[in-house]
């Protein structure tokens, strides 16, 4: 695995760990770093990074799993669509287990709904083209990494003249919630491990206002273990130096200005909107909605559906976890009532969710 395998080299990892240990050897306090991207959360657990780091470094997880932060109303709406006879729900595999107020897509599939897990939104477009008698609704969930691929699918559907391809859109954008979080006086974050692939689209410079306004160090960091260790090392160095800059560990992918074509695609198809984050609440200007020019592909505008009253699950600490205030083990439901096969809250449903990652990979 070229460009992945090299970044898992054990000897190099040990050298970087030693570098970090040396860095903080005399540091008396604790440096709290937040990874906002769920893929980072996964990677930390998967490679067992947390227990390799010196005790002065504390990693906490932020709201970066797009499935986890999707409001329950969205899941309920997807379920309601799934129940319509001619509708096929096309989705990435991540969404199908997410519990809505009273059901999930997997549960609806068991009752006869047509749920098709695809690898790419273009596969959903092909599905619509192949089944003109069906209504294909793709679940548009994800950050700036994924949103352009859905935008691309809409452009493609338009090009092919499809009348039966729709997107149920709940895309979110990244730096905005970080600013919202940082302005929470309870939250003490000494530095941000900034998302790898979101940044490939939006560019490293996108975090500049955050770094400058809140005086918080930001390092765009890749997902491989070496990347993560180096990102931590760079953040620690900023903290030790008293700097608060945007640095880019992941220069092999992420450019300062990001991917202009992907950004143009996003801007063509979507526009910013206010949106709710599960566990956090409404964050102005943090979502994407389909522009009027593409309203013919907007499921919500084209296909009426009645949705049940949303009902959040009780006792779940997801909101606090998404803000990085508590960890899964602080939740009384963790591992007892709430498990990956029967998730209570959003953080347990996606394999990227903080609770799911802790459940699957946590060692104590």
């Amino acid at each position, binding site marked *: 695995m070229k460009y992945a395998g090299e970044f*898992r080299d054990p000897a190099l990892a040990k050298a970087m760990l030693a570098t970090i240990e040396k860095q903080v050897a005399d540091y008396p306090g604790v440096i709290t770093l937040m990874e906002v991207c769920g893929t980072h959360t996964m990677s930390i657990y998967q490679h*067992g990074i947390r227990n390799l780091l010196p005790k002065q470094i504390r990693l906490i997880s932020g709201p970066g799993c797009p499935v986890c932060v999707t409001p329950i109303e969205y899941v309920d709406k997807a379920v309601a669509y799934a129940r319509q006879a001619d509708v096929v729900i096309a989705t990435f595999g991540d969404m199908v287990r997410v519990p809505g107020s009273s059901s999930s897509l997997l549960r609806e599939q068991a009752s006869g709904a047509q749920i098709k897990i695809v690898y790419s939104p273009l*596969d959903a477009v092909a599905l619509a083209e192949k089944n003109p008698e069906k209504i294909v609704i793709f679940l548009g969930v994800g950050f700036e990494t994924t949103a352009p691929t859905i935008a691309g699918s809409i452009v493609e559907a338009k090009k092919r003249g499809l009348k039966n391809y729709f997107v149920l859109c709940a895309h979110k954008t990244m730096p905005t919630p970080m600013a919202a979080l940082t302005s929470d006086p309870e939250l003490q974050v000494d530095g941000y491990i900034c998302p790898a692939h979101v940044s490939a689209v939006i560019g490293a410079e996108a975090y500049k206002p955050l770094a400058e306004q809140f005086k918080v160090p930001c390092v765009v960091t890749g997902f491989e273990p070496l990347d993560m260790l180096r990102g931590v090392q760079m953040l620690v160095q900023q903290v030790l130096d008293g700097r608060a800059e945007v640095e880019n560990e992941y220069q092999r992918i992420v450019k300062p200005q990001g991917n202009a074509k992907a950004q143009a695609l996003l801007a063509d198809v979507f526009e910013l909107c206010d949106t709710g984050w599960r566990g956090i609440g409404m964050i102005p200007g943090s979502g994407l909605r389909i522009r009027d020019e593409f309203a013919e592909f907007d499921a919500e505008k084209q296909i009426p559906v009645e949705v049940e009253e949303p009902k959040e699950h009780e006792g779940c600490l997801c909101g606090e976890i998404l803000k990085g205030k508590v960890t899964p083990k602080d939740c009384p439901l963790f591992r007892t009532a709430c498990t990956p096969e029967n998730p209570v809250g959003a953080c347990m449903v996606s394999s990227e969710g903080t609770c799911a990652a802790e459940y699957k990979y946590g060692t104590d």
Partner: protein
Amino acid sequence: MGVMLDNPPSPQSPPSRGGEVFFAKELKLNTDVILLGHGSGGKLSHQLLDELIIPTLSQVAQSDQNDAAILEGIDSTRLAFTTDSYVVDPIIFPGGNIGDLAINGTVNDLAMSGARPLAISVGLILEEGLALAELREVLQAMKAAADKAQVKIVTGDTKVVPRGKGDKIFINTSGIGVFDHDLKILGNAAKPGDKILINGSIGDHGMAVLASREGLDLQSDIATDSMALNHLVTKLLAEFGENVHVLRDPTRGGVATTLKEIALQSQVDICLQETELPITQTVAGACSILGLDPLFVANEGKLLAIIDAEKADAALALMRSQPEGGGAAIIGDVVEKSSGRVMMQTAIGGMRAIEMLAGEQLPRIC
């Protein structure tokens, strides 16, 4: 059907039914596909059995067919008995099909208990409309797999379900094994200090099937690892006897789930070494595209052997000398008595827990 194991009917003897109405020209006449009537129990059923299924699988004359097969000359007071149904989609995939899978799977379950596989039953559930050519291919693979494993298919059953009420072909195989020794190979016998061995690479079967499934559009040369392991087990037991504590084939749920089962049954902690896991580059590549963890992907020609540490290197050497074990590796240790945790030391030296597969592994992009 019934067969005397000591007196197998000569393969030359043709099906011995009444008149010429039973012969092949009729089967060929208008059945390129399975019809509902082939499951009626009547003449079409008999034709299908006499023309295709029995000659392919067992060559037992119709006049020897009874409600049950009779096995004679049993000289063991202990028997192993196992069953599995096979429901894979697609039924034919790179390196094999549902037929050899069904034989190998049941042979392996018998072998994992330390038994010598003796006889296998075959229950077919065919979907109306199944192409006879596909059925023939599956049956031929079953026969070849049984021959290779040196186990006899002695009894069977065929049902047909209406189109849309099945999925081409489901196969149940059940198996009887006898014991040539007094060893007890059980899932609760892992002991601290034991080594965990596997006979080759991980995840090939599951990824071969997934990659050949419609819609994912992956191209690769990943083939199933489906294989009978009884000969390998025989050699391991002959050589290492009671030093072999646990044998289990990591099928559905993969290596992770199987080790978690063993850890719970034996009430021990297990620690894997990520760097020691034999995973082919291609399987790793396919897994990375789909976001899957090969530890949870099914294998059909692999066994996990938990063996006394003192004999582990010798057992590894033996495995590697066998056709079924060329890629064998020691992948971890049983570390201590506990409540049954499985951990893995990662390549960079970290530690992570291994749980059972939660639901199904789904292709994901998160």
